[in-house]
């Protein structure tokens, strides 16, 4: 047995990411790891590549227990990983990137470029990778960039190669090329762990499939013995309670309508409606939101607000129209980390609190405090730095910022990410409350359960396009997942 995993458990503060997972994989096998967002695929992958250490359980390679305590150790045990995000250095050549950190040197400690080039050539030839070892990486296409990463992974005599969503960035011919390479690696006796949620490719390339759900292994099956529908059923489980429609749909008139001049499908949102947006990572949910607030251009997209065509040029412009976006990435473009809770909360509404350019700080403080109280924000003072707060309370402050803009359409992108269970519940209640007041809410989420619990209607995105648009009570998690993975009948 090349790889065996016994009772692997990983606990993060407050989260059980992986629970008692067992599985085995052989040399010369392509083994797919599938699961919905948050099922534990990434955690398992990170445990195998030495990024995380297991809380419990063990990993055996060649029937011998190994401690993969760091990525370096994992590599020396023969486990190499090609991540979705590439780590090559653009200014160096293919050969230099393959041997990054392990450059062959002469006796005097001076780099031997000649040996590096010939060694790189040997690796590229051995695995049929069609690359020129002397090209600069910055001149390569994304597909070739991936080949460099693969070559680097293979150059250390690895026996287990983990590929994380390798086709996410590839065109169809490039995918086929990748599959040919995978096939040849398999012939050479390598184990390939293929992490993906795309059904087509799992069925075209893998020998066996292991399905994860909520951090547990559901089953390992021969790919040939199973259908995509079976896998989707395993991914969501049979025991889903369809707690859909917490509330009656109180929706009123159409407030926002999006249509496309090309063949793409558009959509509408009604006043008081919570429109859920589902889709796998990379399906284009955030991009759709960014287009709505003018952060990205789409010439073929028409946005009609209350019957009037608008063309949001910037987030500020969108806010003036009442379209407010709540970021999925608090740290990157949400928080003003070194400023106070109050200044974070009022950032979008300063116009309201100023006259002739001067801030009316009393009004600002009163309105900010009021909204934060309504959101039950817990802080020593509204003047405390926002970085002192927990994730949930930071999220509330950013919610407060959006609410102070008096949104008519509120786009929440993963609003419950990184917040604890209690705060999550409060956020759902808040969204419901806003909807009751007639605000249209576009609720982007990767958590199927919360979409079914809170949304009146669901859009499902697949590869940048809307593939499903139905009231939640006419949908099942199974249908959504089929649409999201492109396997709908």
């Amino acid at each position, binding site marked *: 047995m090349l790889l065996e995993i016994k009772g692997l458990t990983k606990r993060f503060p407050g989260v059980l990411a992986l629970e008692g997972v067992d599985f085995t994989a052989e040399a010369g096998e392509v083994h797919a790891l599938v699961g919905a967002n948050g099922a534990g695929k990434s955690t398992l992958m990170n445990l195998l590549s030495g990024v995380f250490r297991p809380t419990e359980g063990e990993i055996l390679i060649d029937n011998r227990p190994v401690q993969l305590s760091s990525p370096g150790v994992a590599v020396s045990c023969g486990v190499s990983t090609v991540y979705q995000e590439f780590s090559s250095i653009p200014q160096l050549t293919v050969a230099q990137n393959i041997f990054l950190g392990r450059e062959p040197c002469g006796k005097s400690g001076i780099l031997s470029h000649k040996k590096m080039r010939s060694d790189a050539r040997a690796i590229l030839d051995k695995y049929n990778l069609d690359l020129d070892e002397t090209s600069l990486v910055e001149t390569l296409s994304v597909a070739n960039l991936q080949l460099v990463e693969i070559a680097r992974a293979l150059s250390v005599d690895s026996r287990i190669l983990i590929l994380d969503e390798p086709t996410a960035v590839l065109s169809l011919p490039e995918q086929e090329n990748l599959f040919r390479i995978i096939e040849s690696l398999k012939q050479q006796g390598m184990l390939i762990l293929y992490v993906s949620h795309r059904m087509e490719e799992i069925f075209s390339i893998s020998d066996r499939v292991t399905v994860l759900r909520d951090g547990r292994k559901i089953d390992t099956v021969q790919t040939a013995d199973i259908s995509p529908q079976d896998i989707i059923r395993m991914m969501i489980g049979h025991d889903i309670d369809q707690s859909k429609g917490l509330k009656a749909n109180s929706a009123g008139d159409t407030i926002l309508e999006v249509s496309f001049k090309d063949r793409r499908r558009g959509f509408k949102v009604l006043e008081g409606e919570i429109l859920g947006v589902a889709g796998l990572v990379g399906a284009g949910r955030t991009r759709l939101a960014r287009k709505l607030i003018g952060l990205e251009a789409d010439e073929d997209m028409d946005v009609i607000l209350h019957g009037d065509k608008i063309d949001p040029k910037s*987030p500020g412009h969108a806010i003036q129209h009442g379209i407010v976006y709540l970021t999925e990435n608090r740290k990157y473009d949400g928080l*003003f980390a070194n400023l106070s809770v109050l*200044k974070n909360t009022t950032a979008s509404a300063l116009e309201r609190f100023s006259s002739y350019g001067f801030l009316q*700080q009393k009004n600002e403080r009163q309105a900010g405090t009021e909204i934060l109280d309504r959101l039950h924000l817990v*802080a020593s003072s509204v003047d405390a730095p926002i970085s002192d707060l927990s994730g949930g309370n930071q999220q509330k402050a950013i919610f407060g910022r959006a609410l102070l803009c008096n949104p008519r359409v509120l786009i929440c992108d993963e609003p419950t990410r990184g917040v604890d269970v209690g705060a999550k519940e409060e956020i759902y209640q808040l969204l419901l409350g806003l909807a009751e007041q007639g605000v249209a809410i576009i609720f982007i989420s990767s958590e199927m359960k919360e979409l079914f619990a809170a949304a009146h209607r669901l859009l499902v995105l697949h590869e940048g396009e809307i593939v499903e648009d139905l009231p939640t009570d006419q949908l099942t998690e199974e249908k959504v997942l089929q649409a999201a993975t492109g396997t709908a009948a």
Partner: protein
Amino acid sequence: MSDRTGTVADNLQTRIWRWASSNAIWIVLALLFSVAALLSDAFLRPVYIFNIVRQAAPVGVAAIGVTLVMILGGVDLSVGAIISLTAVLTAVLMDGQVANIPLAVTFALAVGAFIGGINGVLIAYNRISPFILTLGMAVVITGITQIYSGGTARGIVSPGFREFFNFRIGGVVPVLALFFLGLALVGVRLQQTTKFCRNLYLIGSNPQAAELSGLHVKRITIIAYALSGLMGAMAGIALLARSGVSSTFAGRGLEFDVLAAVILGGTTFQGGRGGIGGTIAAVFVLLIAFNLVNIVGLDYNAQLIVKGAIIIIASSAYIYFKKVR
């Protein structure tokens, strides 16, 4: 602020640390002034103190402008060159005539603001690194100054110009010092009360979040750099008023004094923090240190060493204070 279940009162020690670290430069200024007063009783004489204030005016005024762009997360290395250009320009336009003063001053201010505005437009729209851009701009302006002046100190300061700015009200406070202090006070006040300045802090703290929050990032960037240019021009006029003599290199190297003061005052390259108050205190710290070295009798080169050492020590102390917190 009712119903805050998780209320945690900051204890006294944290509060003192916070106060001390956010006012560190004022503590340094007080200490340094005490040392200076012990070493030389000149530091206790109002006339001498206001001399220092007057001496500080050009760098101080320019530093106020640069503080604004650094809160925004930028930097302005072109102020030294703007000071030189506007000083020469003012002198040439005055041409020794009192009647020309208003035109000369207005025009110089407009030129400063215009150059700053160009800096701002290029930074806001082309996303050029402010460091490189304003450095390049400094070189360009220096060239323009040389061509315009023909490389010699041209222009004649009009009678009364120097005398007006150096006139001591009540025999003690020079008009120039009063201007500078007034500008500093107004700056500190506006910084706390205007929407514009709040926007500077927000953008400096996180430009992406500022954009998403609907702030007019580009517009504010341009205004901030224009203000920095305008203040640079004021500094040029102040320098001319202080010395009374036109020179083509009047502002050479001043951008580093300005930068040293701004950073020492707690407005770091990170953006989103610091303020005009700290900058003003730092300007005085540097100047008093300089005067002190002078009084002790060290020569100019030794003064440079002390000045550099103060910047290094103060910056290290600042980082240390932040870590302790």
